[in-house]
């Protein structure tokens, strides 16, 4: 586990490995070292940020493309400022829908995966139907969802659920089926109940897979919320970013459309980071993927 750390500092950054080989460096104040590390950590992101948006602005300026076809970052900022209150309200509505749907997906998908993993027999017979359910195009079922649940947050949550359920399910299921045979034997011989084997062994062992599923689904949740809002048709602030995007598209307010899109991105990146941090918490002590 240790080599990893060195690799990161020594090989990946291709910096001379100062801290270890020359004792003098060890005397350096830990604070300076800390700041230097943090700076190094943030530096690449910041650089890329500047380069990316700088290039975007510059290229569009040079190409002289109309903002309503492809807006520059500056146009987007102006549009966002001009519609600040709307944007905030819409973001809030979308976040509520996305998070609620994501939460439901997480709970149901993990529970379902557990049920399916209890026996190959159940898995073989039920899973294909879940795949079918997953693959029925949402466009085809939204009208029915709206009829049953009414236009509104309920329908949006259902759309979010439909789109974010499957990745968690699939990953959790594969994870639950990947438990090391020796450990399964251990639990089997100590006469563990199914319940115990699931909760004390297979779920902890599947965590890296579950986390991968959550990472995928939390971004899909926002996509789902926006699609839902776009299609299910709730007016006003409750319409969320999806409706704002639709309206902006019809009105050719492309900069505002981009502002909404980037806001959606930002929201899901935030949720994504939270999931990532949680996974670090849970896995860093024992799983390769999160070890420092």
């Amino acid at each position, binding site marked *: 586990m240790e080599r990893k750390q060195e690799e990161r500092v020594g090989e990946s950054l291709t910096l001379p490995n100062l801290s270890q080989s020359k004792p003098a460096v060890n005397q350096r104040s830990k604070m300076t070292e800390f700041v230097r590390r943090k700076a190094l950590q943030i530096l690449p992101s910041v650089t890329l940020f500047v380069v990316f948006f700088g290039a975007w602005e510059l290229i569009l300026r040079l190409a002289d493309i109309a903002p309503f076809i492809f807006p520059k970052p500056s146009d987007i900022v102006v549009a966002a400022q001009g519609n600040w209150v709307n944007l905030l309200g819409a973001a809030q509505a979308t976040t509520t829908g996305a998070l609620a749907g994501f939460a439901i997906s997480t709970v149901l998908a993990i529970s379902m995966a557990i049920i399916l993993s209890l026996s190959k027999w159940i898995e073989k017979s039920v899973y294909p139907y879940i795949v079918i359910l997953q693959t029925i195009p949402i466009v085809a079922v939204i009208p029915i969802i709206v009829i049953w649940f009414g236009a509104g947050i309920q329908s949006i949550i259902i759309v979010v659920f439909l789109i974010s359920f499957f990745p968690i399910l699939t990953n959790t299921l594969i994870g639950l089926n990947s438990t090391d045979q020796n*450990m399964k034997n251990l639990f089997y011989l100590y*006469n563990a109940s199914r319940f115990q084997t699931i909760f*004390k062994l297979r779920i902890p062992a599947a965590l890296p897979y579950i986390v991968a599923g959550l990472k995928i689904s939390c971004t899909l949740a926002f996509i789902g919320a926006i699609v839902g809002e776009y299609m299910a048709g709730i007016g006003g602030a409750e319409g969320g970013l999806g409706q704002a995007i639709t309206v902006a598209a019809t009105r050719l307010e492309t900069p505002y459309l981009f502002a909404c899109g980037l806001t959606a991105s930002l929201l899901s990146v935030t949720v994504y980071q939270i999931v990532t941090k949680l996974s670090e918490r849970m896995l860093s002590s024992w799983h390769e993927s999160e070890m420092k």
Partner: protein
Amino acid sequence: MERQIMTRISSQAEAAAATGIDRHHPQNLVELKNIDKVYPNGTVAVERANLDIAENEFFCFVGPSGCGKSTIFNMITGLTEHTGGELSVLGTESKEARKENEIAFVFQEPTLLPWNNLLENVSLPLKLRKVPKKQRHEEGERVLELVGLKDYTKSLPSQLSGGMKMRVSIARALISRPKLLLMDEPFGALDEFTRQSLQDELLRIWSQDQRMTVLFITHNVFEAVYLSSQVVVMTPSPGRISDVIQIDEPFPRGENFRVAPSFSQYVQSVTSSLEH
């Protein structure tokens, strides 16, 4: 010493023939009757193994690498199905036996849960039996002390040396007092000193508990002779039980047995049986 090599195999086979193969001897904790094991890829791991293991015995299994020792253990615990013959464990089918909660074991590999610390790892069998946390942890600390790891209760398995991991696995098996304890090369990764003290510890536990039967795999003939009441000698390709050698030395045994002439005679007889 040669007299003491018992030709149990033939006598058992005769007894089986006389009583009919579906009759169980309830006094035997484990019974193998003409057991075969052919793995799906065609490897014949065990062929026509016969063995009666009575209560409160200490059986050591010796034999060359790959001769089928672990396979026999796996069949007894029900981890793998035998492909021929009849097997009874604790008076029932091997797959049922574990349900009595009377079996403990040490696998050939340590098999610890990487996300649990040592205390949680060793007290796992009690946790699975829903023993209250306090008692579980007390017992856990007791067995960790037994294997010399009481300072590591909060460590994770990844922070241990190879031998230490194996000791945790041993401690886990010792936390309950099972009727049947199976140990697959538990002391292989340990230094002589730790090994001897654990040997004595194991013998002490076994003698105190009047109903415990131990099955023990080792490559160390000295260890086999020192520990066991019977040594099972196996030959490879296909794995057969070639000899069952009784060690007629009273328990408790101690340092004086190790230096006794009878000890080296037993060692010799096991070694020569292994070489044939």
